[in-house]
């Protein structure tokens, strides 16, 4: 039997099955609220949801592809009560902005005053929709970003985090700020100011009190929306963007360090050399390649002349001492006033080179018993230069026994 559905039925059904509906909603959130049949059935059966009720309350409908699509009215409502939205593409914001502009144009060009109230209400609704959507999205982004930062709920794999942060920044936040930026001529904020001024003027000069009241409402709405948008825009620029940029930056640094450590592990140079920082030591003012240059200079310009080493030829000195010969010569010269002088002069006649050794071989005759020496105490000493020594000697007189002074 056909049973008409009442709002009470719907609310009762939702309140009774909220957990199951939430799971369906969460599962579809990232896929435009389209669930594959298998997924839909699994969640439905696990949570004891009645398929008949779901279809009767038009919570879901089956697509020609057998997949289930959740109805927008419900998902909007669930997004609102769960404070959980799927991110919209920025095109949608643009679409909203365009609609507001179109509505406003229609309002300004409307000549039939009877239709004016509808235009005003419609524009007001457009403004409210726009604000609600941006507000939900911003909250969602903030929450997701916090989660991403703590890498809790989200996939903690680095690659996924970089990808998510990059996607949010490039696809949502930068376009979103562009829509909101006040200094761009077709920005929504500029448009709001125009609506604002128009509504304000109309509310003051409109003779019809009913219309004046509506314009005053529009003025209030436009003012509220522009204030809220400024607040949200600040929130995005001040909180969201730095947070996401930070995640992107931190993750990128980690990725870079990962490449570096991998390169080190594989014992190869990293793909990019680091800056050649200077060594920490005191540096002199000369070129860093001074060593190479100095070596080149020495090698090429300071050629030492060739030197030949000659064999040292030993002088032929085969002089041999002959004590008897010396003694005889000395005897023939007696008496001698200066014995050492005599030795020297005598040797000079015998050999060209007089060494210490040769000198002593002659001077030892002083001790011979055939001679008598006269050592004068106050005699003066003289130096005698030999080949290998210099002797300081006294003057000694020498006699034979026969010639001893009386």
């Amino acid at each position, binding site marked *: 039997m056909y049973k008409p559905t009442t709002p009470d039925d719907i609310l009762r059904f939702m309140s009774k099955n909220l957990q199951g509906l939430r799971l369906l909603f969460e599962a579809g959130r990232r896929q435009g609220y389209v669930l594959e049949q298998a997924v839909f059935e699994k969640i439905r059966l696990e949570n004891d949801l009645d398929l008949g009720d779901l279809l009767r309350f038009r919570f879901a409908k089956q697509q020609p592809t057998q997949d289930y699509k959740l109805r927008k009215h419900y998902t909007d409502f669930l997004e609102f009560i769960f404070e959980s939205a799927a991110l919209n593409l920025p095109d949608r914001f643009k679409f909203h902005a365009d609609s507001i502009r179109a509505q406003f144009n229609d309002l300004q060009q409307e000549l039939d005053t009877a239709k004016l109230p509808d235009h005003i209400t419609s524009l007001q609704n457009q403004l409210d929709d726009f604000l609600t959507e941006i507000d939900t999205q911003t909250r969602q982004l903030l929450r997701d970003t916090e989660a991403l930062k703590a890498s809790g709920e989200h996939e903690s794999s680095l690659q996924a985090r970089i990808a998510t942060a990059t996607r949010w920044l490039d696809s949502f936040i930068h376009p979103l700020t562009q829509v909101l930026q006040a200094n761009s001529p077709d920005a929504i904020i500029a448009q709001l100011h125009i609506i604002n001024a128009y509504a304000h003027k109309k509310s003051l000069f409109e003779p019809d009190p009913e219309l004046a009241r509506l314009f005053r409402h529009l003025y209030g709405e436009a003012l509220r929306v522009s204030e809220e948008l400024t607040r949200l825009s600040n929130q995005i620029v001040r909180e969201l963007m730095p947070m996401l940029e930070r995640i992107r930056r931190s993750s*990128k640094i980690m990725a870079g360090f990962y490449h570096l450590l991998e390169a080190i592990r594989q014992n190869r140079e990293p793909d*990019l050399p680091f800056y050649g920082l200077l060594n920490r030591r005191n540096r002199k003012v000369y070129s860093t390649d001074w060593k190479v240059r100095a070596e080149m200079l020495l090698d090429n310009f300071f050629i030492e002349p060739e030197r030949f080493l000659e064999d040292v030829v030993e002088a032929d000195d085969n002089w041999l001492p002959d004590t008897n010969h010396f003694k005889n010569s000395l005897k023939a010269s007696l008496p001698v006033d200066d014995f050492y002088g005599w030795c020297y002069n005598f040797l000079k006649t015998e050999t060209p080179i007089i060494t210490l050794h040769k000198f002593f071989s002659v001077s030892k005759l002083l001790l011979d018993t055939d001679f008598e020496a006269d050592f004068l105490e106050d005699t003066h000493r003289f130096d005698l230069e030999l080949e290998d020594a210099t002797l300081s000697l006294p003057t000694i007189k020498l006699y034979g026994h026969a010639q001893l002074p009386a």
Partner: protein
Amino acid sequence: MHNYPPEHRDIVNALTNGQFILYTQPHYAVVEKEEAFYRSFFKATFGFDLHLRSEGYIFLSSDEVTEKDSRNFLIFLAVLCRELSINGQDFKEDFELKKFQVEEIKNLLEKSSKKELVEHILTDGGIPKLLNEWQKRKVLEFTNTLQTQFKFTKAVNLFFEYAMELVDTRLKEEGSEEVDISSNIL
């Protein structure tokens, strides 16, 4: 004839000695004001390139030096950041604000699975020696006299900048936006 600023000698000494000049030092403003002069001065005199980063640090580089310290420091930082991330900390925030305890760093690296990489780069003096070297270069500064506590200066961003450029180089080489990072990094 160029009029040298009174700080000229100190500036040249510090920079050619491998130090960073930080925006907190009075010399920073002098070099910043005379940037063009110093750029050509260092190039013509030593063949060095002057780098002035708006984040607040100045340093010299050369293509001709072979210097091992910075490679070692990069490895140290890479492992440190990895360990901090594993612990769930936002390492970027830590590097900007936090005072690190030397002991804490030692323990962190001791536990790391990349421990042997760090050990490989350390000399006899260990972590304190490494930190001391980079303290002299002004990349970090000790915050107590016992040198058991330190924080990083702005100059550490050069190493992060390098890491990011390394990723860009990789991406360019691979010719795609896909970053090939296996999940074992974290």
